[in-house]
């Protein structure tokens, strides 16, 4: 391990460098790596076969299906929202634009439990829309729509948060050129804007998906914990853990942990590819 020659240190002695690096590694190991290891160790404690069997239990399968279903609805929804928000905020000027931009990020600063509470207060039996929904025979809270809404609330800013700054940084000339060439708004968007956004879009969808899969607090509040029907994977983990069925709980946790690792790796890969693409573009302009 050397100091990055381009970086160069501030003259700290080699032993200090080693100490700092060692400390950093230790911290990363203890705070991040160990919890991960625990998950996999506990999951595989009864052996791989038993762990796999636990995941094939009806409740486990139901939880996985439900999590996937909720994510499969929430993520595309938030992606469309993110594209719409990015377009109107980055390509237009209007009064209140700054406030709207801040509003898009609001869910990030709200506790997930409060988000769930808010949805219950609006869509629950005794909520503002409660009687209305009852009249239509619709169940939101304690049912799939509630789970989807809770997940949408919590993960709403993830795609938008990547797209808005990205689109703001891209000059509008390519889109203007498309318009002068006769493209309609939709054609311009599909053929010119979307391809320019692809890295940010991928990153955003990736982060949104990861968060949606693991959402716990908001979903816990709106779900009613109906086993087999409104129990997503994180809720199932909680239930199994509280029943002292640790192997099964960690088995399910291991699946989510693996997905989290894939997410982290994919994000790093996308960052690298995007960095390369940007560097290539810059280099060719300077050529």
């Amino acid at each position, binding site marked *: *391990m050397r*100091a*990055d020659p381009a*970086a160069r240190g*501030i*003259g*700290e002695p080699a032993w*200090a*460098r080693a100490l*700092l*690096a060692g400390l950093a*590694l230790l*911290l*990363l190991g203890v*705070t*991040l*790596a*160990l*919890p991960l290891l*625990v*998950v996999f160790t506990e999951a595989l404690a009864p052996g791989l076969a038993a762990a796999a069997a636990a995941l094939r239990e009806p409740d486990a399968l139901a939880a996985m299906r439900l999590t996937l279903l909720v994510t499969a609805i929430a993520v595309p929804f938030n992606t469309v*929202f993110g*594209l*719409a*928000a990015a*377009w*109107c905020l980055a390509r*237009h000027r209007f009064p209140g634009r700054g406030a*709207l931009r801040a*509003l*898009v990020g*609001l869910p990030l*600063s*709200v*506790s997930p*439990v*409060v*988000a769930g*509470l*808010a*949805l219950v*207060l*609006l869509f629950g039996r005794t909520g503002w829309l409660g009687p209305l929904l009852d009249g239509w025979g619709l169940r939101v809270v304690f049912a799939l729509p509630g789970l989807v809404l809770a997940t949408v*609330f919590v993960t709403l800013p993830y795609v938008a948060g990547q797209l808005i700054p990205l689109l703001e940084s891209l000059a509008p000339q390519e889109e203007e050129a498309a*318009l002068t060439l006769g493209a*309609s*708004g939709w054609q311009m968007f599909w053929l010119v804007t979307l391809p320019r956004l692809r890295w940010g879009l991928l990153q955003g969808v990736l*982060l949104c998906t990861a968060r949606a899969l*693991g959402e716990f*607090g908001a979903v*816990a*509040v709106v779900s009613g914990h109906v086993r087999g029907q409104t129990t997503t994977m*994180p809720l199932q*983990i909680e239930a199994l853990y509280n029943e002292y069925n640790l192997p099964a*709980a960690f088995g399910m*946790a291991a699946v989510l942990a693996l997905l989290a*690792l894939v*997410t*982290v790796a994919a*994000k790093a890969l996308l960052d690298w590819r995007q960095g390369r693409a940007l560097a290539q573009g810059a280099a060719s302009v300077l050529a």
Partner: protein
Amino acid sequence: MPGLGLTLGVTLAVLGVVVVVPLVAVLARAAGAGWGGLAALSSPRAVAAFRVSFGAAALAALANVPIGLLLAWVLTRYRLPGRRVLDALVDLPFALPTAVAGIALTTLYADSGWIGALLAPLGVQVAYTPAGIWVALLFVGLPFVVRTVQPVLAGLDRAQEEAAMVLDGSALQVFRWVILPPLLPAVLTGAALAFARGIGEYGSVIFIAGNRPGLSEVVPLLIVIRLEGFDTPGAALLGAAMLVLSAALLLLIHGLDRWGRAR
């Protein structure tokens, strides 16, 4: 540019129905409790919950400052083997479901756990105590300081450091006087973000906390308990208080960000 009507409409509609109106419902329900509501907010149990949540979050954010600085420094300035992997790992608390983190940390720090077993002979108990909350929030808040400091650190003007070194400054002095000052806004922003995240944290906390009312019960848990006990107004009051505090924090973070940008 075309498309303003449609995109603005969609944006406003979604934000309105999914975010704004539900949050307004919380505030309205809380306000509806009138002055009696304040009594519910100042019950010993509620006050204790705020103390626990805010205390643990503050201590965790504080601890994340040196940790985050160290990690940012090592990841930015040193060419470690596998640096990319380590750097990616920092994002883990963002990507890992809170419930997974919760049960993992609990098992790790319980008396029979890998770390808990090491601490038990020293008389230190982490799981099922307020210390457990601190550990969980440390995990959850780890990336914030690192990620806000890294870009600033990477973009520092080396000329100043080199000048300081030439003027015979020790590494420590250079760090203290040349490097740290420009990093300060980013550090504070990161800590504030970690703090904001910590006060509302639920999933990673409830397993390791012990959840004893008055001692290790956090505000989000109390909200859930009140909701499940059909004390909707009580839950709404706590929720509204959290919203107001989050809003204040948000303004603070915004201000810190602007300050950092201006420097």
